[in-house]
């Protein structure tokens, strides 16, 4: 899978997005206030912020799992609803959410089944994906026989099944231990390099956000909004990246941004960013 040909629209375009729960009622909550962000093709951006900052809500609006109260969202040039129906994204959650009653391979085949692929094609594609995440040997195993990290790899393989241009990931490594986490991060970057997909990645972890992303979108709560966007320039990641000067600078920049101080220097914000 090579990088997709450049197209005329960004991978994701969100502008003036509001999400208000219980509008008009005493327990009204503004989860998202006038959020605008744009994700370029092939870009990896992270959404980071404390609880209640709206990062997961924003992701779900983009995924059409919930509807924005106000504002516009476009995914691959389509409305969020159309994008979902046309399977323009794959999604991974903090829980792998594999089906216990299916083998690993059949779990990966799930999106293909829903798209009506025939059996032979499904199996071939599933094996291809399992190869990519290096779990081909476990194709006939059951989910409970795999470790947490392995289950997440299967989930990621599943999210790639229909080869969508965009991946939406909601803290997928949150439940894993640190070592597994770092391994998974490298895996994800490798897959991204091979496939050239755009990725929106929600996380709680500053090092993770910095390590993975091209840009880190910093959000804060009450009401949920974007407060800063920190560009990251680590180049090709290797073993030494996590100990490099520029990595720590990025981590510091994000941390400062989270604390409410603006990121020092760096590439100016793009169009549409707050």
């Amino acid at each position, binding site marked *: 899978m090579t990088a997709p040909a450049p197209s005329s629209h960004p991978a994701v375009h969100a502008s003036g997005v509001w999400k208000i729960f219980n509008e008009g009622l005493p327990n009204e909550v503004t989860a998202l206030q006038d959020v605008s962000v744009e994700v370029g093709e092939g870009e990896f951006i992270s959404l980071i912020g404390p609880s209640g900052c709206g990062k997961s809500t924003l992701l779900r609006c983009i995924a059409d*799992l919930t509807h924005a109260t106000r504002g516009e969202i476009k995914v691959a040039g389509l409305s969020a609803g159309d994008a979902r*129906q046309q399977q323009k994204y794959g*999604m991974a*959650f903090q829980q792998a959410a594999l089906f*216990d009653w299916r083998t690993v391979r059949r779990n990966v085949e799930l999106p293909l089944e829903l798209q009506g692929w025939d059996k032979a094609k499904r199996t071939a594609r599933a094996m291809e994906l399992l190869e990519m995440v290096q779990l081909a040997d476990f194709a006939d195993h059951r989910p*409970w026989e795999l470790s947490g990290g392995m*289950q997440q790899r299967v989930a990621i393989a599943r999210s790639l099944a229909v080869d969508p241009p965009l991946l939406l990931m909601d803290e997928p490594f949150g439940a894993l231990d640190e070592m597994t986490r770092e391994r998974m991060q490298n895996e994800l970057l490798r897959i991204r390099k091979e496939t050239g997909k755009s990725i929106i990645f929600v996380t709680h972890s500053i090092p993770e956000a910095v390590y993975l992303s091209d840009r880190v979108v910093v959000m804060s709560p009450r009401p949920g909004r974007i407060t800063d966007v920190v560009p990251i320039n680590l180049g090709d990641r290797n073993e030494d990246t996590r100990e490099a000067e520029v990595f720590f600078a990025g981590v510091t920049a994000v941390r400062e941004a989270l604390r409410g101080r603006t990121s020092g220097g760096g590439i100016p914000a793009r169009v549409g960013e707050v």
Partner: protein
Amino acid sequence: MSHRLRAIWPPILIAVIFLGIWQLFVVLKDIKPYLLPAPSLIFSNFFGSLNLMLSTSIYTATTALLGLFFGTVVGLLLALLAQRFIVVNHLFTPLAAGLAAVPIVALTPILNNMFNITSRTPRVLVTMIIVFFPVFVNVTRGLVQVQPVQLELMRSMNAQPRTVLRLLRIPNAIPFFFTAMKIAAPLAVIAALVSEYFGGPQLGLGSRIASSAANTAYGRAWAYVVASIIVGLLFYLAVLAVERWAAPWTGRARSA
């Protein structure tokens, strides 16, 4: 010695000890059979009329099986409706609970009067009613209680409600179904048996237990009780066996 055999011998040992104490008690205290028969008397009655034990067991087991089958079918159909239409759920759950609270001893004479007492129908109906409740409640729960993340996953894959039902809810409900069956199967045997106390053909275990007890032949009555325990156990073990084949993932630590 396999793992399974090693797990079985403690309960068997306890059973043997229990029977031994019972036998000693009856013999040493000279307890008369009309009060409490000795295990030796019960077993001699049981093994002395094996054909009879078998034919009566088959009769009652057939009633239980019919009631179990139809009660399960009705329970499953209504569970599907209850998942789809929340109003059905709200309507039927208290109704089913109320019906389940009516004891077999009250239901049977009523059904005997409504339907032909000389046929199996009233007893099968009683069994159906008893079986329906656990099946309905558990399967409904299994269909409804899917993990929210799994529902989001399905939506993200653009799955229609019917597909969600077929690919997610129903497989999710299978362990719940077997939980229900583990309750319902022995209950069906009990219901079939007790409903035989109230009239109808006298070919089953229940009427024989009652008749033997009325004739003060408690050794024989208990022998029939042993047969009914065996039938109940067989039903339960059959459910376990089917569960192991159909749902090998039950009871495992759930995957993340």
